């Protein structure tokens, strides 16, 4: 057994690209313009602080979380969502200095608010609070992240910031909602709720082990440990709103979900990609052209479709903007489809696409070498090259915590640790590349 180590050794500089709507500075290009093709960014402040482990993209702002637990943000800041202590846009990434004494492990960006979770389970929120979506018991905006005192004696794992509401996942599986509840997206009451400004428990998930939460638009979703998807809030494709979490498509086992304003992407453990909703705007995917291989439907009659045009190629990463989608396939290709008016598909034009199209990051980029990660804001898209080789990471708990990291060529390394850190890098025997993994996603 080897000792787990932080990713001290980094052979190559991490690269970041952005494209799509850019008029609030959200692309990090230093310009206030839309970009129709991926732009390779030069962000010295980020490259000097180490590897970016994740991005959170909101309505028109971006939050970057580094592997060292630091947070940077840029884009629209007019309601304080950047956490810089001012209500101003920022063209370039700036550190969220008030969080510097914390090790941040999870971030989320909503339409105009932001959430940050620390390694000791503290939750901080900032930005627009008009609907109570910050959870501070008022309707005030905050320009600096403020600790959500309601969770002072609880351990927060994740926050999902949406259009006007937020969901929080606690250790111990409990899900909370706050903010606007008009479409049922808080899941806290049978009665119609306008808004709440303090967290309340989402009903109906008490006996379910929830491992991840998702929210965008007026939608809410959670995935259980056994791969079941629960959705509540605004109905997809004209279906009625749900005031409580509903078990959707119980025959499907999914590992990841990505929500748009009118669609949801679902990824199975086998790398199969499904979508439902999405014909609302008429552009996301042509339902008639979808593969007829798998049509699943749930009790509300919503039809789930396997996304076509992938020819059986497995999907590794998924992301959803308001009205567009981006994925990374197992062969390293980035593909996009949906609404394209602002160039958010990165295909060099403003056309909509109904079938996934391959995005080119540039002639020198060898997609096979690196597995990219993609992130979508409302009308824009980011790709980063973490130089990780995707793998499976198993988690076993037998006294101490043990991880088994397995690469695609089935090499494996086992780590046994006393107390899990957030991020590890692993080097496979007989393989060049390193594997980065985040224990947060598997614990």
């Amino acid at each position, binding site marked *: 057994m080897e000792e787990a180590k932080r990713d001290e050794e980094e052979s190559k500089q991490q690269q970041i690209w952005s494209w799509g*709507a850019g*008029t*609030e500075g*959200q692309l990090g290009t230093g310009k206030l313009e839309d970009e129709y093709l991926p732009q390779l960014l030069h962000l010295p402040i980020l490259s000097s602080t180490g590897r970016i482990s994740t991005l959170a993209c909101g*309505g*028109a702002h971006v939050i970057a979380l580094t592997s060292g637990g630091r947070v940077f943000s840029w884009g*629209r800041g007019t309601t304080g969502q950047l956490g810089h202590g001012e209500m101003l846009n920022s063209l370039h990434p700036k550190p969220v200095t008030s969080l510097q004494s914390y090790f941040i492990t999870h971030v989320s960006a909503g*339409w105009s608010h932001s959430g940050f979770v620390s390694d000791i389970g503290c939750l901080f929120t900032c930005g627009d609070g*008009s*609907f*109570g979506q910050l959870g501070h*018991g008022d*309707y005030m905006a905050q320009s600096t992240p403020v600790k959500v005192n309601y969770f002072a004696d609880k351990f927060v794992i994740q926050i999902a910031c949406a*259009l006007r509401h937020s969901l929080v996942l606690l250790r111990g599986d409990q899900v909370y909602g706050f903010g*606007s509840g*008009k479409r049922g997206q808080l899941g806290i009451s049978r009665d119609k*709720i*306008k*808004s*709440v*400004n*303090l*967290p*309340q*428990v989402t009903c109906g998930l008490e006996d379910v082990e929830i491992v991840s939460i998702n929210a965008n638009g007026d939608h809410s979703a959670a995935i259980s440990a056994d791969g079941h998807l629960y959705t509540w809030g605004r109905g997809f494709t004209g279906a009625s709103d749900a005031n409580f979490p509903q078990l959707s498509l119980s025959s499907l086992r999914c590992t990841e979900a990505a929500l748009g*304003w009118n669609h949801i992407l679902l990824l199975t453990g086998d790398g199969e990609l499904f979508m439902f909703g999405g014909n609302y*705007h*008429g552009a996301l995917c042509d339902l008639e052209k979808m593969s007829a291989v798998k049509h699943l439907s749930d009790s509300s009659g919503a039809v789930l479709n396997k996304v076509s045009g992938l020819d059986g190629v497995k999907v590794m990463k998924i992301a959803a*903007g*308001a*009205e567009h989608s981006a994925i990374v396939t197992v062969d390293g290709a980035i593909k996009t489809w949906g*609404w394209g*008016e*602002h160039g958010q598909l990165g295909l060099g034009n403003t056309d909509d696409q109904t079938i996934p199209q391959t995005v080119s990051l540039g002639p020198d980029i060898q997609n096979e070498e690196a597995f990219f990660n993609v992130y979508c*804001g*409302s*009308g*824009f898209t980011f790709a980063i090259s973490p130089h990780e080789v995707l793998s499976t990471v198993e988690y076993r708990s037998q006294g101490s915590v043990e991880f088994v990291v397995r690469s695609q060529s089935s090499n494996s390394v086992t780590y046994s640790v006393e107390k899990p850190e957030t991020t590890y890098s692993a080097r496979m025997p007989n393989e060049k590349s390193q594997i980065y993994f985040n224990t947060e996603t598997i614990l």
Partner: protein
Amino acid sequence: MSYDDVEIEDMEWNEELKAYTYPCPCGDLFQITKDDLRLGEEIARCPSCSLYITVIYNIEDFLGDNDKSKNKSLEPAKQQPISVA
């Protein structure tokens, strides 16, 4: 095609823009002014893209409202009764 139907009470009054606004999926805001509403206009447009929404409202609520007395019921949901656990 209208992107969505939105009730006026779900729109937010933006003092800077002097317009009722609602988030547009492009990142900008759908906007409609009180003058538009008084004229019976029901389309709120986004200045940045081709999308628009249909605003659901009662025109009587705006006739005779000359900005001197802001109709409370039409103000955004900022000071709504709070239901707290």
